[in-house]
């Protein structure tokens, strides 16, 4: 029974994946991709990876979906691209890609039942940080450098996206302007939901220490709230030249880096936390990251400044 549920889920995911790449219209394939993401979320739950499930739903399906849907909408009238491989070539590529998939499948079936060295080690080392959520321990302590670099990747992507602004629009507010909508269900929703969203984000950050959740998942919810408010025309993003906005964006990475380097003095190694205050320090860093990541994610979806005239 359970196995069939999983098999059905897996087949559904593959069917949606096929639809996402084989459909001609970008809009349709994006919709298929979003649903694929939701199916995958359930798959992650089945695999016992609740933190990943939250991230997949929020980022893999949600934010990526929003980004791609917006782009599909804007590029809809773009002329079709011509560099399409010929049918025999596509068949050749299909066979080769199927070969890759089959090879990877064989690897999956051959996976050994390895000794869970890392899982045991991670559980026994968790006391040093005071966090009970093993995934968060890995992200914030054991592999902190990965997390820092990942935040810098987000930051670099934002710098890159902003750098794509037309010269005339540089320094102005990012993205297109959504005119203030007439009072309606959307504006009501955009007024009611954000306070709840902020509470949920804070909750995810707080429980993330000991249960699935964490700064990143919370940040995604905050980012969604920002985007909702913008979509309803209730508020606009500050101009990219705003010093406050820029400080907000670098606050998280800078705090993490600063604490990491302070670890040399306080705990004897870079990115080490003094044992007595590890949990408190991690929560402070996570809070800074929550704010920065939320702003960065939302701004990445909004895009570069493109309004040549200052907003009225």
């Amino acid at each position, binding site marked *: 029974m359970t196995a069939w549920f999983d098999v059905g889920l897996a087949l559904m995911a593959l069917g949606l994946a096929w639809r996402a790449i084989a459909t001609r219209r970008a809009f349709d394939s994006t919709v298929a991709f979003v649903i694929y993401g939701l199916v995958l979320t359930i798959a992650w739950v089945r695999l016992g990876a609740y933190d990943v499930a939250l991230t997949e739903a929020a980022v893999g399906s949600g934010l990526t979906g929003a980004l791609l849907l917006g782009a599909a909408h804007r590029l809809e009238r773009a002329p079709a691209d011509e560099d399409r491989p010929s049918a025999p070539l596509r068949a050749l590529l299909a066979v080769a890609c199927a070969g890759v998939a089959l090879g990877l499948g064989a690897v999956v079936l051959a996976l050994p039942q390895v000794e869970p*060295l890392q899982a045991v080690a991670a559980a026994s080392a968790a006391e040093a940080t005071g966090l009970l959520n093993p995934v968060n321990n890995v992200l914030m302590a054991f592999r902190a450098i990965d997390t820092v670099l990942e935040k810098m*990747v987000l930051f670099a992507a934002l710098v890159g996206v902003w750098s794509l602004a037309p010269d005339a629009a540089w320094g102005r507010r990012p993205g297109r302007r959504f005119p203030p909508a007439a009072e309606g269900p959307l504006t009501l929703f955009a007024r009611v939901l954000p306070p709840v969203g902020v509470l949920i984000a804070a909750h995810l950050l707080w429980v993330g220490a000991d249960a699935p959740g964490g700064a990143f998942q919370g940040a995604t919810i905050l980012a969604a709230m920002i985007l909702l408010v913008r979509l309803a025309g209730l508020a606009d993003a500050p101009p990219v030249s705003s010093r406050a906005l820029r400080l907000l964006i670098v606050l998280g990475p*800078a705090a993490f880096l600063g604490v990491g380097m302070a670890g040399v003095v306080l705990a004897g190694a870079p990115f080490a936390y003094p044992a007595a205050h590890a949990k408190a320090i991690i929560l402070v860093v996570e809070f800074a990251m929550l704010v920065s990541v939320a702003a960065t994610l939302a701004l990445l979806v909004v895009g570069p400044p493109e309004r040549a005239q200052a907003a009225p």
Partner: protein
Amino acid sequence: MIGLEGLLASFGAGGSALPALPVTLPLIGAALAFAVGGRAGAMLALVAHAATVLATGVLIVVVATADAPVSVALGGWHPPLGIALRADGFAAAVLGVAAAVLTAVAAQATGAFWPPARRARLRAARGRRRVSAAFWPLLLMLSAAMATLVLAADLFTLHVAIELLTFAAAPLLCLDGRADTLKATLRYVLFALLGSMLYVAGIVILYGFYGTLDLALLSVAVEGDWPTVAALGLMTAGLAAKTALAPLHLWLPPAHAGAPAVVSAVLSGLVAKGGFVVLVRIWFDMAPGVATEAFVALMGALGLTAVALGSLVALQQSSLKRMIAYSTVAQIGYLFVLFPLAFDPEAQKLTAGAALAGGALQFMTHASAKAALFLAAGVLVERAGADALARLRGAGRRAPLAALAMGLALLALAGAPPGGGWAAKALGAAAQQSFWSDALTAAGALTAGYLGAALVVLLQRCDDVGSPLLWRGAPALALAALASGLGLAPLAGLLPMAAGAAPTPDVAEALAALPPLAVGAALALIFGEAGEARPRPRARGALIARAVDALRGAARRVVAPALALDAGLARWSAASVVLLAMLAALLASLSPSFPSPAATIAALSALG
């Protein structure tokens, strides 16, 4: 040395933080430069870079004097749970040259990329503000990513670092916002991401079978069974795509030729070789025993293909920056010849001996000489307002330092002593694999050919000399001088050379370098005026002139197919097929049952 130790003590327990500094300092600088913005932000970026250079210098000295690699377990967590940063001689050498390239690039960029004054209200100032706001943070992130690539001893950290490198480099390519550079950037990012997904698939397999991604732990655990081979094949193919190893170079020439010269300098010099650093880590530090004779021969053959294709296409370019970009394609190929040179057929494994030292020297020479070439080209092109060689006639006379830099870079790349290219070849020859090192010597002649062809044009007499741009070429010249003096550098403490094995330049060596240079000069004369229609004094009808023209025509027809091949390979679908074919070939060559080329040849000759 007491002063040094005092300095070290201030970095915490025995300098434990030292390897982390080249990673964290530029990142902090990037964040601050972005937040502050404007001229103060750019100043902060320069300060952060200076601090990074200082830390890198100390690290190099420490590594050179220490017996073992300097490493730090981040957070005090040791692998497999934590991540170690490990600075060995190879890392120190690459870090040093990266610091030199980035410093020269930063020095040159204080011209066009310096933020305008706050009061400047012109429309042009808006554009320049945009460009400088992106340039300085991204340059620093690029520096940090490069440092992580050489220092991190964990395959997943390497993945994140290589992504950071890509995302910091990509926006720099299209700062001008033109359609063709945007296209080139998109092709670059898409192809690089394709490569990184193959890499990720590979590390998933490795984790599944060994339960760790730490290079040192893996190196004792890996065996040549089929899942490991599958993982290494996927990772190698992915990294080859990321590093633009021909025939997977579809994105590199348009991207590097279209970007601002300062950006091209750092991209061609450092970023394009990032994937190669990871390949060296994987094959030399982690799985030297998995390599087979067929595999190293395949890597070497791919490398020589890249050298031949890149050089022949470069020889026929009519624009300076495109020519230098194709020479990057060729030089990435050079690096891959390291694999057959370093293979020990008796032990059936890759050995980190003189050949690896030679590979590192090639890396350093190419990085510094290539960056010098692009910086010099930037000065020349800026002055002439075009990068078609036909319009650069005599440009070298206006910017003598830039022209001198090009000349020195030519000598270093073509293998003249005491340049780095020469030392690398000498070390490679010590590896007793004469076919591969002879091929490298021949390739040096091609390099001298296309660079010489450009220099001939640049130094031609022209009437409109104008005011000379004397000092603009200084950063380029400094880098070129570094490249052409690397053979004298005391690198024995860093690179795995046997004591006293460092080659010494003498008269015999200098004479040995002459034949390739002479061939290069001949090529330069034959292809010297490619792409431009100069009215020639034909009326005299001298026999010799006609013979020379016939020779030129014939030579150009011989190499013309390279252009057509290159244009074909630049198509996405062609690159797709090549990528999958390369993956298949890598997997086949790595499988233990695959016959080694030597055995095949022996069997064939026995048949005959």
